[in-house]
């Protein structure tokens, strides 16, 4: 028993010692309180050179951490074990965080660069008046296809996917909102439809698509399409630009019926230690030159109008990734449908996945 106690005490002393040591080391390197900034972002979603530039300009050290899904990020921020100063969630996650009181309002006086953002992308339903968030990147959901394998087939509508020649060729995301949404869109219903009859109709229509579906996967979609394992996929425009970057035979289209438009916005999570620095960082990322540099690195569509002037014509003139306002007007944001409806969407999606070819 004595031995057990001795061991226990040794462990406690060692732990305290290590904690002190990290504290001393951190403060020696200047990693304390006011001059560090913990950024919580998707993997590979910022140009690392911009991090260096920000550190040089402001003298604030950036601690960069990544997440791979909005849900994972939400859980970690809600738990509050680590404090993050800046995070970059997607639209629906922002409205959830707002509901749960996990966000600190932005001080617009400290973010003058907000004026460069295209007004189309400001004051959206998930964050009215941009009280809590500033746009980082945006995009759409569309069809990516390989014209070489498909011998010149063309796609303009969601309904083109139901073509019999596409047996076993389509890849979908393993995500209820996207797949059910596609079914709704193809019937000209809203992406946020909660009418049970409309949803059942969409489900029946999707069942008919079953023979054409090769697989319902996650991130592997990018690899599979780039390696030509499949000819068509329904993907986010961000993923599409990555796939085209890896294999330029592929082409991306936004269907005529309209589609989902999504945003990744910068926010300051509750519990942030360096709110001042967070504002500096947001303003820095919204600076047109920096935004342009970041866009070239990441390859997603920037909401920064002024940044477009710094980007080459071949990027900004590409209507697949920068559609005009006449087209974006038809796009819909995902609204938070509430737990019950989300569960219903998922139940339908599960049934759809179980539908035999």
């Amino acid at each position, binding site marked *: 028993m004595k031995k057990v106690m001795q061991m226990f005490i040794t462990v406690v002393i060692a732990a305290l010692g290590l904690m002190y040591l990290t504290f001393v080391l951190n403060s020696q390197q200047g990693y304390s309180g006011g001059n560090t900034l913990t950024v919580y972002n998707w993997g590979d979603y910022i140009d690392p050179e911009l991090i260096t530039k920000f550190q040089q300009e402001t003298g604030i050290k950036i601690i960069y951490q990544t997440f791979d899904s909005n849900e994972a990020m939400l859980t970690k921020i809600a738990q509050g074990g680590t404090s993050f100063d800046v995070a970059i969630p997607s639209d629906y996650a922002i409205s959830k965080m707002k509901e749960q009181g996990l966000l600190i309002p932005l001080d617009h006086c400290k973010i003058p660069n907000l004026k460069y953002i295209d007004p189309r992308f400001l004051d959206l339903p998930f964050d009215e008046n941009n009280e809590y968030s500033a746009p980082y990147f945006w995009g759409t959901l569309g069809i990516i296809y390989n014209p070489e394998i498909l011998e010149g087939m063309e796609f303009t509508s969601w309904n083109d996917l139901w073509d019999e020649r596409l047996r076993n060729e389509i890849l979908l995301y393993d995500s209820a909102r996207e797949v059910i949404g596609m079914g709704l869109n193809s019937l000209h219903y809203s992406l946020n439809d909660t009418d049970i009859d409309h949803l059942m109709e969409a489900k029946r229509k999707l069942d008919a698509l079953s023979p054409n579906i*090769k697989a319902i996967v996650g991130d592997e979609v990018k690899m599979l399409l780039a390696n030509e394992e499949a000819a068509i996929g329904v993907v986010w425009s961000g993923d599409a630009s990555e796939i085209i970057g890896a294999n330029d035979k592929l082409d991306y289209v936004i269907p005529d019926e309209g589609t989902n438009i999504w945003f990744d916005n910068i926010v300051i999570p509750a519990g942030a230690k360096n709110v001042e620095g967070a504002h500096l960082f947001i303003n820095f990322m919204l600076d047109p030159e920096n935004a342009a540099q970041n866009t070239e690195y990441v390859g997603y569509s920037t909401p920064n109008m002024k940044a477009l002037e710094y980007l080459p014509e071949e990027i900004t003139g590409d209507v697949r990734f920068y559609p005009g306002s006449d087209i974006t007007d038809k796009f819909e944001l995902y609204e938070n449908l509430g737990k019950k409806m989300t*569960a219903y969407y*998922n139940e339908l999606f*599960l049934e759809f996945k179980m539908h035999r070819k």
Partner: protein
Amino acid sequence: MQGRTRNIYLIPYMLWIVLFVVAPIALIMYYSMFNIDGAWSLENYRRFFTPVYLSMTLRSFWYAILITGFALLIAYPTAYLLTKTEHKQLWLMLIILPSWINLLLKVYAFIGILGFYGPINSFLRIIGIGSRQILFTGFSFIFVAVYIFIPYMILPVFNALEELNPSLVDAARDLGASPWATFRRVIFPLTVSGVKAGCRAVFIPALSLFMITRLIAGNRVITLGTAIEQHFLVTQDWGMGSTIAVFLIIAMGLTMIMTENGKLVK
């Protein structure tokens, strides 16, 4: 004094069992009683008996049975041959070796191997059969699952065969039993405990497989494990996810009891 010291040494184990065995199961039971609105109800259990979940359960069982069956079919002869080889420990280690590699890594490798431009399809093209879709089918799912589970089947069967007294086999042969009769009447009954242990080690995890249903079967195979994952991560319907988990626990308990009874060897 001695008795007390012994009790103190028991504390860590008791704590372990309470914290990591009893508490999680109790929590799962507790959560399964709440419907999506967070109200206390048995609605989830009613939902489980709707066609969607029942057919999912049947399919999960069917695939788990197939996986266990094929694993046994391959593992038994392999284990038998192993006991006959000279350097059996070395061979055994070589067979166990792949299980040291991370599961996800192996599964990703299979995406490449089974893919349209992968080596298997190249081979099929060369010998004139022509390429066909292998990835994202029920076949690829069973193939990869069997590959992953085989070491867990071979080990207990191998141990049982090792314990088998060879003179019993000799006696059977001396008394005129054919090789098949020897196997059916002597070898197999005496190693059935190993087979049962192996089946348990494969069947139970196979029932709740989820990751490779997406990566290898492209969600064309839906098991209870997939549904649990979706309910916890996407729908946030912890109640329904827990209810499915409760049924999995019951199924596993039944499997344990069924393979436990009528043990022939110690």
